[in-house]
């Protein structure tokens, strides 16, 4: 039976260097994809990915298992990505605003996915999601988070997180429905 992530993190906090290797091995893929598909730029995603893990390393002495390790890890990732967007003058759409689909946006899954099939359309639909919805979906898929955990990691309330996830799934399903 594998040690829980929280146990590994506690072990790493107490000086077990190997525990970090195991945690990294377990979460590197999901976190990297979360970052990559959030910023949609590989070089930038690698830079942010490294910074997120460095913050994990730096924060190890203050780690307390008050929540799942995954929630803690992706909270760090979320904050780092938000910082990135702020630095670039962009802003994540607020969760409340993001709940309602844009009335007359250029986002039109049917147009985007029109003429395309399969996975490519799905990928494009994912990229076309509003950042907050995409983030909620990625947290659900890559980190396996529940709505409550998404809300906690992103600092939103559960209803907003639930709506974000629902809208994201709905749009993606629509893209899939064209298959």
């Amino acid at each position, binding site marked *: 039976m594998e040690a829980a992530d929280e146990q590994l993190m506690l072990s790493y906090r107490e000086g077990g260097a190997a525990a970090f290797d195991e945690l990294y091995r377990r979460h590197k893929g999901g976190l990297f994809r979360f970052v990559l598909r959030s910023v949609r730029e590989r070089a930038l995603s690698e830079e942010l990915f*490294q910074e997120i893990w460095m913050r994990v390393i730096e924060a190890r002495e203050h780690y307390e298992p008050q929540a799942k390790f995954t929630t803690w890890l992706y909270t760090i990732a979320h904050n780092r990505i938000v910082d990135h967007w702020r630095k670039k003058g962009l802003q994540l759409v607020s969760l409340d605003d993001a709940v309602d689909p844009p009335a007359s946006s250029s986002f039109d899954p049917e147009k985007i996915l029109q003429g395309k099939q399969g996975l490519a359309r799905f990928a494009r639909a994912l990229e076309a999601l509003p950042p907050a919805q995409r983030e909620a979906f990625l947290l659900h898929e890559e980190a396996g988070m529940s709505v409550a955990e998404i809300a906690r990691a992103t600092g939103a309330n559960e209803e907003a997180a639930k709506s974000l996830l629902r809208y994201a799934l709905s749009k993606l399903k629509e893209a899939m429905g064209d298959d």
Partner: protein
Amino acid sequence: MTERDDAVSRRYRELPAEEPPRALDEAILAASRRAHAATRRPAEARPAPLVAPAGRQRWYVPLAAAAVIVLAVGLTLRVQLENPADNNVARVEEMPAKALKDQARIVEEDASRRKLEGEAREKARQDVLTAKEPARERSQSGPAPFPAEQGARAAAVATAPAAPAPQADTRMAESMMQRAPAASAPEAPVVAAAAPPPPPAARPAPAPLASEMRAPGRSDDALGRDRAERQVASASAGATAKRLQEADETPEKALERIAELRKAGKHDEADKALAEFRKRLPDYKIPEATRERVERPLAR
């Protein structure tokens, strides 16, 4: 989640499973190990004690430190207490100079005293001569001098050696003082042994030096050195006093003394004294009347 949600999840899993590059993995893991090593280093870097202090042993270091401090303070105090001894040594080394200064002072006092004594004798002699002059004029053959006069003359002769000027004495004392620091202590007894003891009548035993009286803790060597040097100085004090007396004489007094000698028939002594006078005061013009009295009368 619904079945349609599972379908979305399945489709999502079909997307390429992007992974961080291997170099990035290694960089992050290396950073983790560096941070881990940096955290543990301070504790590991602390050397373990060779012997774990326990029980009495834990007092060893404080006691050793206290002992070192006490020893250091003790040595410091001891050195400070020994410094006065060093000062005493320095004082002892300086003693020849002090003793010589004292000797110079004694010589001067002795000369003054001699001078006063000489003046008193001279006065007494003059009184005697004044009283005996009619008798002497009556006896043209020149009788033997009056005993008192004879004693006074003897004293005058004794106090009239061919002596250098008093300044010479002072210079001698000063030069001795200058040489004194260089003189080694063991040489003093040798000098003392070589110097003849002064005649008791010529000079009274010198009073103890004030510096000697003020320094009760002085060593025997220092006292012996002082005594020896005082003896050396006192040996020459008699002659020096005579020279001083003569040096203090005015030319008129000296000529008067020579005239007295001449009158007493001591022509050799008078000649000698006159020669010394001329040697001492070559440019002194002796008055005609006095010259007749001090010069040897021409043989008829």
